[in-house]
């Protein structure tokens, strides 16, 4: 990566005094991730330009990744890190140009606060999530004239579109110190990827470098959030496991979904948001009431995810035992943590199992009720048959509760388009007719009867945001015969 600082005007040479680097020498500095060279491409009467060339050692970099999961398996080895301006350039600025950044100039202290005609050139800037507009939003409020030109991605393959890199020039009459401070903070913000672990230390750094200007900056929140990449984001990143071909696998977590569902507005002039409980809470209440009305004591929650329903039932219902089953070991870990916060007499009523509804599982036999809350839509429609077999033919709970999004209601949910779904892992979202047809087929095939329900405030045209069904085994189909032969199965 490269930064060229140029000074024009009456006494351009002031730059070299401020940088505290001799204009006729090339100097080398060792850094933790490679080395930096500082040299002057220009030093004449009308301009002085200093180049900070950072040579990143790609091998060392790939080995230094601090336990962070990469986006693709080969990402640690094949990436733009040695070339695009990033937090590593900020580090280089603070190590090579530390005195200028901190406003010290022993030989010519009067220069420190003198505004100069300055120009910073960054040949490669990854302006993620905003492009040129982002560069402008970040630098124009600080008084810069911004020139940005976009780099081609690959001239041989125009259909791949443009790159997300920009060649950027920033011009302003300002002090060297201010410009370096701005760059120091904004380069990682533009790049949005830190090369070091973010710790509380970084808060200090941000406050120190930005104390004079950050508070008034209109993008203060973005700058803070990106610079500080708080731990939660790092955690989430680590949790997103990625396929070798680069396709992102959605995490099962339902934060986005909840946010979208919160936008549900059945009436135009609905009450101010926040008066009714969120939809997932209303689903939990519905489940509790349905279980309690049917006196279900032993319940299995299939697809328990992070265990919110389990914790809720343990705290707020009269079920005596609830088993949570999920296919994701990670979700179960999170659920485990949630449950461990319960009191001992609640905790002992809950149990977690890894399970999968593709497989028949004898452990799921013998419950009074099974719940499939916002689960079926995470299964490919043509694979539902496996789930049906596991739930209705093997586990065979006398009561089965199912909830799933009502696709029709998406129309009244700002942010959900007609062709999009509420969660990136949803494989389908059904209309009320589709859900009802599925329920009818399942009930007929496996000997249940069912009743449809709606959860959430109903829209006169689209219905409620969540649709639900209660399946109850027909008494003539209740049999005590074990669904799975009791013979010991030999592995393999």
């Amino acid at each position, binding site marked *: 990566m490269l930064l060229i600082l140029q000074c024009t005007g009456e006494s351009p040479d002031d730059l070299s005094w401020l940088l505290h680097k001799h204009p006729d020498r090339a100097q080398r500095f060792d850094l933790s991730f490679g080395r930096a060279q500082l040299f002057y491409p220009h030093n004449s009467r009308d301009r002085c330009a200093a180049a900070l060339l950072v040579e990143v050692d790609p091998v060392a970099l790939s080995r230094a990744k601090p336990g962070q999961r990469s986006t*693709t398996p*080969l990402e640690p080895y094949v990436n733009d890190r*040695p*070339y695009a301006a990033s937090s590593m350039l900020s580090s280089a600025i603070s190590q090579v140009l530390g005195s200028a950044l901190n406003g010290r100039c022993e030989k010519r202290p009067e220069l420190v606060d003198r505004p100069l005609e300055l120009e910073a050139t960054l040949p490669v800037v990854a302006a993620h999530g905003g492009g040129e507009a982002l560069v402008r939003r970040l630098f124009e409020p600080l008084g810069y004239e911004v020139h940005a030109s976009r780099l081609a991605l*690959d001239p041989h393959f125009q259909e791949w579109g443009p790159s*997300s890199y920009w*060649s950027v020039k920033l011009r302003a009459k300002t002090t060297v110190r201010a410009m370096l401070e701005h760059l120091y903070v904004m380069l990682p913000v533009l790049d949005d990827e830190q090369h070091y672990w973010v710790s509380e230390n970084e808060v200090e750094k941000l406050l120190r470098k930005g104390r004079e200007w950050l508070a008034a900056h209109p993008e203060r929140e973005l700058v803070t959030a990106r610079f500080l990449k708080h731990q939660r984001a790092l955690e989430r990143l680590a949790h997103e496991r990625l396929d070798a071909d680069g396709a992102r696998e959605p995490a099962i977590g339902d934060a986005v979904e909840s946010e979208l569902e919160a936008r549900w507005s059945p009436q135009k002039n609905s009450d101010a948001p926040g008066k009714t409980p969120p939809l997932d809470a209303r689903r939990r209440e519905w489940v509790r009431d349905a279980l309690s009305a049917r006196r279900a004591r032993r319940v299995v929650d299939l697809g328990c995810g992070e265990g919110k329903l389990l914790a809720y039932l343990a705290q707020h219902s009269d079920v005596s035992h609830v088993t949570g089953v999920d296919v994701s070991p990670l979700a179960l870990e999170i659920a485990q943590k949630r449950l461990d916060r319960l009191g001992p007499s609640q905790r002992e009523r809950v149990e977690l199992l890894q399970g999968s509804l593709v497989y028949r*599982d004898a452990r799921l036999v013998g419950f009074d009720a099974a719940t499939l809350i916002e689960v079926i839509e995470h299964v490919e429609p043509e694979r539902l*048959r496996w789930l049906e077999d596991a739930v209705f033919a093997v586990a065979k709970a006398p009561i089965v509760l199912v909830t799933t999004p009502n696709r029709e209601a998406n129309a009244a949910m700002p942010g959900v388009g007609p062709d999009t779904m509420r969660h990136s892992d949803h494989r389908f979202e059904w209309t009320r007719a589709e859900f009802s047809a599925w329920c009818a087929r399942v009930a007929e095939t496996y000997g249940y009867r069912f009743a449809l329900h709606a959860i959430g405030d109903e829209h006169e045209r689209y219905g409620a945001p969540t649709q639900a069904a209660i399946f109850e085994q027909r008494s003539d189909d209740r049999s005590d015969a074990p669904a799975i032969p009791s013979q010991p199965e030999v592995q393999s």
Partner: protein
Amino acid sequence: MNDPSPTIITLPDPSLVLLVAPSGAGKSTFAKRHFRPTEVLSSDALRGWVSDDETSQEASADAFSVLNSIADKRLARGLLTVIDATNVQRDARKPFVALGKKHHVSVVAIVLDVDVDTCVARNKSRPDRAFGARVVRGQHENMRKALRTLDDEGVRFVTRMKTEHEINTASVVRERLRCDLRDRTGPFDVIGDVHGCADELCELLGELGYEVEGSGLDATIRKHPEGRTVVFLGDVVDRGPRVADALALAINSVRDGSALFVQGNHEAKLAKKLAGREVTVSFGLERSLEELAAAPPSFVERVRTFLDERPTHYVLDRGRLVVAHAGLRQEMQGRSSRAVRDFALYGETRGETDEFGLPVRFDWAANYRGKALVAYGHTPAERAEFRNETVCLDTGCVYGGALTALRWPERELRSVPARRQYVPPKRPLASAAAPSSSDRSLAARDRLDLASVLGGITVETPVVRRVTVGPSLVATAIEQVSRFCVDPRWLLYVPPTMAPVETSTVEGFLERPEQALEYYARCGTDRVVFELKHMGSRAIVLVCRSPEEMRARFGLANEHAGTIVTRNGRAFFKDSVNEASLVTRARNAIERAGLFEELRTPWLLLDTEILPWSAKAGELLRLQYAPAAAAGQAHFAAAREALSLAASRGIDVGALLARTAERASTIDSYADAYRRYCWTVRGPEDLRIAPFHLLAGQKASFTDRDHGWHLAQCDRLADADPNLFTRTERVIVSLTDEAERASAVQWWLDKTDAGAEGCVVKPWTFIAIGERGPIQPALKVRGREYLRIIYGPEYTLPDNLARLRERGTSAKRALAIREFSLGVEGLSRLARNDSLARVHACALATLALESEPTDPRL
């Protein structure tokens, strides 16, 4: 006092042995003398295990709970187990009787009926026993009671010893069950229901290479020159034209050691009749009785004694083959009980009859998950088919079908057609094809049980003996399968990972073919093939002749009758248009090449690479590969310009400029490298398939064919549709020929210089096992330029390369062999129509191994 001969206690092996005696009678001493320590479960010892106090009566419940579950596990494994507890109370014995019943083993009692005073005295002399005499006397009394009720409770073979002397001199003899012929390794020819079709029987025996000596009731099978043995699966009698001849041939051959015989239900009924008991003469029994009435009484007597002692099943060939007339569930194999006998004779019926008045049978084979192949008859079907390691050999000869034999261990089926229909069938012969899944629910053979994989997976393979994958890796794979993979019925094969060659020492190179040649030479391979690598995306392509064939075999069909699956078990294409187009064209090519006909299969599984790389990896290219090049090129252009300006000012940046120029050139080479594997895909017609293995078809996995065969078949596909199928360029190298080795190296250099990804070096045979174990089935040797997209653009710089050489390939190699072994086993299970669970176990285990973190650059 007379001194009788010492008592010999005969115990069936396996059995559950209860020592019955009061405390102090000497049970533990007796047990120690006659049984291995691991065979004896002592209640005292278990009290100690659970409570640190062997005498703690308070710990009894816990101790017995553990004891019971150990006994349960041992009996499931067919191990003789001795319960060293007083066992004097009926309630104490009850759980053990139930265990015996559950595992179909006899429960045997050895009663040490010693004088009660002796017991009391012994107890007193033990410092750790706190029982009073009253307790011991009570136990003694209970023991006496037990003697009267043991038989009623279901305890067999009660041995009662009354004196110290008798106990001290007794000996224990273990007797193998009659069904246990595990030491007979065959080879065998198992013959299905004969029902008096003696003509067809002789003809079939002739086909199998046996000679029949003598004639009529004296006929016998002569010893086979290759030591083969005939196994009659029962139902030799009744219905057909020559019952007595067929039966005589079987009886004589068993006598002469050239045949084995298990009873069928028809023999059982005949035996009952001959024993003088009342039976309804029906279902063809009248034919047997007619013939026996005409035969000499001595023959009838021989038949009676023969049938009387005939077992109903045998376990053969180290437990790998089980023969029983109506089949046998896994937990019944090698066991003896009324339930086992009934199952072997009659199978499992549902207690209802069908529209033809015949009992509706429970399809036990659909749920069979055992390891042994079960050969059975009893239910006539049109054709014999392997299903879940079972094969029904009753092809209804007497009904005008055929008489069928299984050759073991070849697993081949031989049939001779019936000369005519001797009796009309009561109902049409069942089609033996796997029952297709109904539209409503899953077919039984397609069910997967979580319990069988949750604790980890162990697969025995023909390459490495056993591959074990632990539960946490399997847990990850279960999530993959459940959330992202194709339907399990289509997840047939997960290709194994491939290890690279050892690191080259030649300057500028990380990989070179010399290391591959040396490796295979070192392993004792004489011939290898260099196959040019296709830089695309791995794809496993299933092509069926029709949707009907697909449904019949895989239980799930799509319109284009085929699937394309990635190396991690997912659908290759997001939409089905591309898949439909490629599969359809592939099918046409396979038809044109005549491969379905020639290989006698309605489906083929191909191991391929789909090109171009950019078709599948578009996102990766746009988000990772191209950006790195774009950023690098822009960076170096600017850096060189700045440095040139500084240089022109006379500043000493020469070395830096040179280094920057060198680094800049690596970025250019890198961009060239990835671009070679990209071309614009507008529709499926721009995609190409490069096949390199034919994995499996209906009856065979092709892992026994060499790579010459595989490549020749793939060439035929390329000939049939050159626009779809790409040939694999290759060079065959004899490892003893220096010139061939050198020219192969040169070929690799030329090809990789010209932009090829590299090549894969394989031993000539698909499976190669050397003196020191399995040999790598393939090693990849990647080109210098290609490796830039793996190790990074600048990896070739001397300083970088020096550090990158420190890579270890041994873990990757071990992994490659394990995954390869799973793949080979999975394919052979697939080809022999094993249950989905058994095919799935191999695929799931491979996915699990793939989730183990390894260096992705290898």
